Each structure stands twice: as structure tokens, then as C-alpha cells.
């Protein structure tokens, strides 16, 4: 853990985990309560408990690498994934 700071890790195909010293607040400055030392924040957009991850990224087969995305990488991959996501979205 970096001393005194927060460490944010995007996990593959899943949430952002935040560890260390940080506060979580909404845009009006109200604290957002959480338990434990580590929080998982949704980055797939499908959580029903935003801003927290509730595991829904798995039900929708959401895909994202852990490392930073290269803006110049081919878009083909993204297009084929989009189709797959739609196929696998449960009814």
C-alpha cells in the first residue's frame, strides 16, 4: 500500500478495488458509507448497488482488461464483444 494514499486496481472483467486511505462521497459532498477496508466500485455500469460492484458484471459477461486500454488498438475486437454481450445478457 502506498503510504497515506489510496491504491486503485481495475480487476480484469470486474470492478475497481480501492484500498488505503480515501473517502467516498457523492457529488453533493455527502459521505457514501461502506464497510471494510477495501471497496469494489462498479465499472461495468450494470450494478444495482452503484457505485458499488454487486457482481452483475459476471451475469452480463462484461469484458475489460486490467491494464490501461490503448486508444489506438483495433476496434474490431470491441465490435465482436458487443455482439457477444448482447447474446449472453440474461432475460
Amino acid at each position: 500500500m502506498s503510504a497515506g494514499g489510496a491504491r486503485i486496481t481495475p480487476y480484469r472483467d470486474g470492478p475497481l478495488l480501492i484500498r488505503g486511505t480515501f473517502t467516498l462521497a457523492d457529488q453533493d459532498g455527502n459521505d457514501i458509507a461502506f464497510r471494510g477496508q477495501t471497496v469494489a466500485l462498479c465499472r461495468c455500469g450494470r450494478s444495482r448497488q452503484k457505485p458499488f460492484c454487486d457482481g452483475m458484471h459476471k451475469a452480463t459477461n462484461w469484458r475489460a482488461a486490467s491494464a490501461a486500454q490503448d486508444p489506438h488498438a483495433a476496434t474490431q475486437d470491441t465490435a465482436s464483444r458487443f455482439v457477444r454481450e448482447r447474446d449472453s445478457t440474461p432475460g
Partner: protein
Amino acid sequence: MPVLPTPRGPLSATVLTALRGAPGSLPAGTDVPTPGDALADDDLHLALYACYELHYRGFDGVDERWEWDPGLVALRATLEAVFEHGLHAALDGWTPPAADDTTMDLALRAIADADDSPSLSRHLERHGTLEEFKQVVIHRSAYQLKEADPHSWAIPRLAGGPKAALIEIQADEYGGGDPARMHARLFADTMEELGLDPAYGAYVDALPGATLATVNLMSMFGLHRRHRGAIVGHLALFEMTSSIPNRRYATALRRLGVRAPRATEFYDEHVTADAVHENVAAVDLAGGLVRQEPALKDDILFGARALVELEGRWATMLLEAWAAQQPTLRSTPRAEAVAA
């Protein structure tokens, strides 16, 4: 303290009768026949369960020296060999997915995705009755009232990153140091809200072998250093398949009119807690362990696959029994009081 359960056959009778006496009194050379189903046999799994409980909370009136009694440990090893052989036989033909330290999360997910056993949580969410829900809670109580303990055996067997990852998970399981927030306590709260007895071990006599086997699996993996990979894989898959089912269980309770926060908190808590734990367990714990000890990769995946196997058999047993309007619990005075 829990009372000694009632024997169900020759093996459990040998163990449970011995435990009433002084250590050293176990007759040598107990014959352990191979049961028809080593993954569900009532007698085998109650005997094994009793041996393991000596390492957890013990039994009322049982001499604590039995925990390391050489005769009992020797018998336990024989029971474990039968169980382990049964696991390998059931998984005959299964090949662990290819993976390295950077892809253990993908390999574990592949095991979860390949699971085609029926979903208990989906059934309960949509159609389950309160009586069925209570039965599930009783079945689960054998583990959930000591939630996280079997995986804690792994702590001194790990070092560095994987150990830190395990602690990160276990700290939450134990309520971050607040006894009221321990997951085992939250489960006891749910039991109380449902009118069930939250005392540790209260329902053991009612639990069939297939249920006890799910707990024995983690005790066996946890208590043997050689199974440290398997207990890590077991935990990882447990955490990876928890958030969504627990949301369904919470939804089921609310649908059934059980809305007290104290009743649903156990399930609600697990939705977001395990969304954290699954990543820590798959990447930092399992992946981290493979980085340190590459030779454990297949053991980790075996532990995960063994969990899927036993959980699948257990869920199938429940769903089939309900469909046939059969009981899922062994009949004991206590179980009958619940059903009434």
C-alpha cells in the same frame, strides 16, 4: 458446547462411542469399508465430521486430548483416504484448465462457468417456500456458523502476498474485529429471525451425508498443509460464486415476507463484500500463490472443481427432494419441530 451427535452406522458409532471415553481407548484396526457413495455416505461423513470438530469447537463432555489422539488421527486418515478417493473418482476425466499466475482468475472462472448443476438460489428467488428456505439455512448452518474458519487454517501455510490477500478477505469475514459483524454471527441472526436455533452444532443430527461432505471438504483441505492449494482454490471459487446467489437469497426472503433487516443482512452483506473478495481471492490469493509455487496450480483448480462438484450434488439433492415432496433433513425431534 455442542453435544455429540447420534451415530448412523459402524464408523460413526466407533468414533462417537470412543469420544465418550478416555483418549487412547480407540480399538486399533477399525475396518473402513468403501461406501456406495463416498461423497454422501451418512456414516462416513458423520464420523469424519466428528473427527474434524475436535479441531474447531469440540463437544460437550469430550476430553480435549482426543484432538491429537494417535489412534483417532489414524482412523481419520483412513476416512479421509476414502473421501479423497471418492473425489478423484467423481472428477475422473476432468482436466484442470491451462493457466499461469496471471490467468488463474480466468481458469477459475472457466470452472465456475462450466458448472451446469441446477441453481438453488434461482429456485428460491422465484418459487421457493419459506419452509424450503429454512431447510437451506439449517443445511448451511454446519458451515456458516463457523464461516471462514476452515480457510483460516491456510494462513500460517502462506507467506507474503497470498497471505496478505487471505487476511484481507478473512478480516471482513470476521467482521473487521466487531463480533456483531462477523459473518457467522450475521448468519446466527438470520437463524434467530427465522425461528431456528442458532446454537453451534444444533442441527448436525438432521444433516445428511451430502451436506456434511461439503463441510468436511473444507476441513480436510484446510487441515492438511499438502492441500493448501486446494483450500485456496476452494475459497476463490466460493467467493466468485457468491454475490449473485446471495442477492437472490435476500430477494427470496423479502418475497416470502421476511423483511427484517436482521434477517436479510447476512445475504445483503455478502453481495457487496464478495464482490470485493472474489477479485482478491482469484487474482491476489490464487494467482499470487501460483507465482510463488507454480506446482500448486492444479491443486488450486482441483479445490475449486471439488467445491463445484459437492455443491452441485447438494443442490441437486435438495431440488429433487422438494420436487418429489420428500424431506431434505434427517428426521430428528429438532427437525420435526422446524417442519411443524
